[in-house]
Every structure is written in structure tokens, then in C-alpha cells.
């Protein structure tokens, strides 16, 4: 029971990070029907931005308050990563709009390779680590020498995810921008006929997706304290899996999928073998897709017209 509870906490934490990245996949897919394979690497870049910003703030500027430093790091990482997201769409995807379907996909893989290599060249191939921050936590239960521990980091990660999901859901469902975005998803030409600047809406979608990936990147760095140039790939694929599992195009689905993947991974590692955790996660994906082809919260494609 104690082990179970501890793994539940760990799984939800990991799942939250996957969920935040998955929102970026799902939004971009929703609006232009493209899998942005570079999204995982955007997440990795944001981790590096956070790392560098944190080191500058603490070592050079001598800011001693961890909370303040984290806040500044978060804002900086979101802003700079959003800029990356905007630039990638502008340079690598927009010129290919209207081209054959595979073209932007190939371009996305190219961007992905570029980003990981760019970071490898400029930052080196070795793991980079931060000094430990935000240590400590709450001991929830103690029995037979085993302590169920909820760290402050985990509380922070889950809270931030919950708040952002609520905020995003509100943005998409209730604001004019969200409405314009959904309109572009459903009928781009009609949206333009109503005066919606479709290109701008797509740009903003990339910017928002990248900003969320940046939050995930900061939290990832905070949680593990280490990042390397190749860290975009696996979390990226996992988050993409989460988006598909939850129903691609669905915002709550992305987070739900993220949580499920995180939980499976953590529980499998705890009770079976850590080597096969990815096999377990992807097997569940395959099984779910056999019975629910559009994902857990995805909508069926059949529609009355």
C-alpha cells in the first residue's frame, strides 16, 4: 500500500510533465493536422534555457531566493521558447502549407535533428546539472521503515499542471482567440471569410504550445536536476503517445493521456522491470487504439453535414 501510494505520486508527477508537452502536440495537430515532431526538442531547448538562466541568476547576479529565481527562470524560458516556436513555424512549416501532406512532417523531423544537434554543439554532449533546489517535502505516511514522501517539487509540478490546464481550457472554450482557433480547426477558409487571420492564429498556437513545453522543460529540470541534448526525443515521443492515447485534438485528453502514460511507466518500473517500462506504455497505446481508434476523449470522425 505504501509503495503503491508513493508510485502513484511519482506517476502523477511524471504524467503531468508529459501532459504539458502533449498539449502542444494536440493543439498543433488540431489546427493544421500536422504532427510537430520537433516539439519534444523545443521542450529540451527550454530546459537548457532554464538551466542557463538559473545559473546566471544565482551565480552571477547572486539572487539567493530560490522562489524568485524560479519565477524569473520560468518567465524567461516561456518567452524565449515561445520565440523559438514562432520562428520554427515561420521558417519550417508555413512555406510548406498547401504542399503535399508529408512535406511539413519531413520538415519537422529536420527541425528536430537541427535543434538537438545545435544544442549538442553549443552546450556540449555531456549531461548538465543544476544545484539542487526546492528540496524537502511532506512525509505522508510512515510504516515499517518505509516513508511515503510527497516532495515540494511534486506538489509544484502537479499544481502548475492543474492550473495551466484549467487556464487553457478556459482560453480555448471561452475567449475570442480560442473561438477563432477552433474555427480554424473546423474550416480554415470559412474562418478567413469571417475576417480571422488564419496565419496569425496558427502562429499563436505554436507560440502557446511552445510556452507550455517551456513550463514542462523548467519543471523537468527542477525535478531531475539534469538535462542533456538528447532529452527531447524520449519525452517527446511519450508526450505524443499521450496525446494520441487521450484523443488527439482534445486538450483534457492530452493531460489524461499524459497521466496514464506516466502512471503506467512508474508502476511498471516499480512492480516489474524498469527495462520494459516503455514497452508497457506503448503496448497500452496499441491496445487502446484497437478498441478506441480516436483515443479516450477524441471525437469520432463521423459527422452529419
Amino acid at each position: 500500500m505504501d509503495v503503491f501510494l508513493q508510485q502513484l505520486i511519482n506517476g502523477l508527477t511524471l504524467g503531468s510533465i508529459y501532459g504539458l508537452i502533449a498539449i502542444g502536440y494536440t493543439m498543433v495537430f488540431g489546427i493544421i493536422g500536422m504532427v510537430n515532431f520537433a516539439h519534444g526538442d523545443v521542450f529540451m531547448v527550454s530546459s537548457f534555457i532554464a538551466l542557463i538562466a538559473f545559473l546566471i541568476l544565482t551565480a552571477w547576479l547572486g539572487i539567493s531566493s530560490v522562489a524568485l529565481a524560479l519565477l524569473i527562470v520560468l518567465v524567461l524560458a516561456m518567452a524565449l521558447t515561445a520565440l523559438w516556436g514562432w520562428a520554427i513555424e515561420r521558417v519550417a512549416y508555413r512555406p510548406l502549407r498547401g504542399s503535399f501532406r508529408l512535406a511539413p512532417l519531413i520538415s519537422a523531423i529536420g527541425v528536430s535533428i537541427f535543434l538537438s544537434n545545435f544544442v549538442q554543439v553549443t552546450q556540449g554532449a555531456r549531461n548538465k546539472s543544476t544545484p539542487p533546489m526546492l528540496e524537502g517535502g511532506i512525509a505522508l505516511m510512515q510504516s515499517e521503515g518505509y516513508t511515503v514522501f510527497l516532495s515540494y517539487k511534486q506538489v509544484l509540478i502537479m499544481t502548475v499542471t492543474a492550473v495551466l490546464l484549467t487556464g487553457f481550457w478556459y482560453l480555448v472554450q471561452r475567449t475570442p482567440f480560442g473561438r477563432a482557433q477552433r474555427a480554424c480547426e473546423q474550416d480554415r477558409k470559412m474562418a478567413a471569410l469571417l475576417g480571422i487571420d488564419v496565419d496569425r492564429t496558427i502562429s499563436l498556437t505554436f507560440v502557446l504550445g511552445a510556452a507550455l513545453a517551456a513550463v514542462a522543460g523548467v519543471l523537468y529540470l527542477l525535478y531531475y536536476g539534469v538535462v542533456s541534448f538528447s532529452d527531447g526525443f524520449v519525452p517527446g515521443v511519450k508526450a505524443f503517445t499521450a496525446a494520441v492515447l487521450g484523443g488527439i485534438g482534445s486538450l483534457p485528453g492530452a493531460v489524461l493521456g499524459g497521466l496514464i502514460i506516466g502512471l503506467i511507466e512508474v508502476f511498471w518500473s516499480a512492480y516489474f522491470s524498469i527495462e520494459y517500462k516503455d514497452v508497457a506504455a506503448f503496448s497500452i497505446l496499441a491496445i487502446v487504439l484497437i478498441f478506441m481508434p480516436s483515443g479516450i476523449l477524441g471525437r469520432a470522425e463521423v459527422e452529419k453535414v
Partner: protein
Amino acid sequence: MSVAGINVLVEETRARQAAATAPLLAIRDVSTYYGSVAALRGVDLEVGEGEIVTLIGANGAGKSTLMMTIFGAPQARTGSVVYAGQDITRLPTHAIARLGLAQSPEGRRVFPRMSVFENLQMGASLHGGRHFAGDLERVCALFPRLKERLQQRAGTMSGGEQQMLAIGRALMSRPRLLLLDEPSLGLAPLVVKGIFDAIRDLNRQDGMTIFLVEQNAYHALKLAHRGYVLVNGRVTMSGTGRQLLDDPAVKSAYLEGGHGVAAGA
């Protein structure tokens, strides 16, 4: 002379006056292509402020292409589209919409996974919520059916209701020029009558300029001040609604034996 005859005279005079000043919309020698296939070949057409102008023609004549060319999607390859004195031929679609043109397009194109209310909000996007409540009331008064269904998902409504929504959505932007592409397509005769009445009211009471594409030639010509006939991407005839209705060629091609007479009888 009968009252109806005087009405026709009044309308013709009004139409001539409108055409004498600079037209609100002027299409000059426009050709549009899909790939290498010409859909429009040198079309000339004018819509004056305060007019109802209709464009009739068979399936595939290029009517909807002309409607979309006005909005730059696709753009005309040659010729020009001038709206209120401004050349809009090369403007992006959304910029054209912001100038005060609105379209209820072919196939209605309501947003299927949005509620009726949200679709109408989309129509009002350009005004950012100003005078939304009043405009919503006006559209609901015009199409009471929509008022009952504000929270329903547009994709689940019947064709007639979707048509009303498409027109209502276009009206929400308070257009100076309203383009309607086959508003009567696939609708029951009673619904058609309701929609044509609504169009007439918009023109008479609100002074809205309307450019109407129709297969239902009889109704459209009766309603319009002036009309054009489009055949294979070319304008072959133009005149007042009455002149075209009485023209033997128009009669035989678009009225007699066609659904126009059947629906109008």
C-alpha cells in the same frame, strides 16, 4: 398602369441611379483559374450601393467561383475587383472581410462542432463584442428558429436551419455588402420563401446591398433590381430583373420547365 407596374418602374429607376454613381463593387475583366482550367473568363459585373443584384446560371457555370474570387480565395489571375473605390484583388481573404463584406458561402459552411451561439459570435468577430446583444436579437427576429436552438451544435441541425445560421452569421458582421451563395439550395419551398422575404427586408429596411447567386432563377430575378447570366465562366446577358424574366432565352434556359417555375407557381 397597375401598382405592380409602377413598382417595377420605381425599382428600375432606382437601379439606374445606383449604377450611375460609382458602384460599391466593380468586377472588371476577371479571369480565375483552377490550375490550368479557366473557371471565369473576363467577367465584368457591378453592384451599386443599395441594390439587390443576382447572378444566375447553371451548375458549374462559375457562380460560386466568382463569389470566392471577390474574397480572394482563389485570387483572380487577371482583371480587378474594386470595392468602395479600393482595389481588393490581391488582398488576403481576412483583410477583405474586414472591409465590410460578408458571405454566406456555398455549402453553408457553418462550424459543425460549435453551438449556434458560437457560430454567431464568430460572425461578429470583427466587432469584438460591441453591439453583439442587439445584433443577436435582430438575427433571432429574422430567423426565430435560431433563437430556439442557440445552444445546439450547428452540425446537428437540418439543412434549412444551417442555411439560416450561415446567413445570420454573415449578418452579425454588419456588412455593407452581403454575398449570398444559393441561399435556397435544397430547402423546402416554404423555407425558401422565408429566406427570400428576409433578404428583401434587409435590403428595403436596412438598405443593405446584396449580391445573390441563385439557381432558383425565378425567385431571384423577381427579387433583384438587376441580374446577370453566367454561362461557362462568361457573362452572357444582363439587365433589370424584369427584363431578364421576360427574355425568351432566359425563359427557355432557366425558367420554363426548370424548378424556377415549379417553385414560383
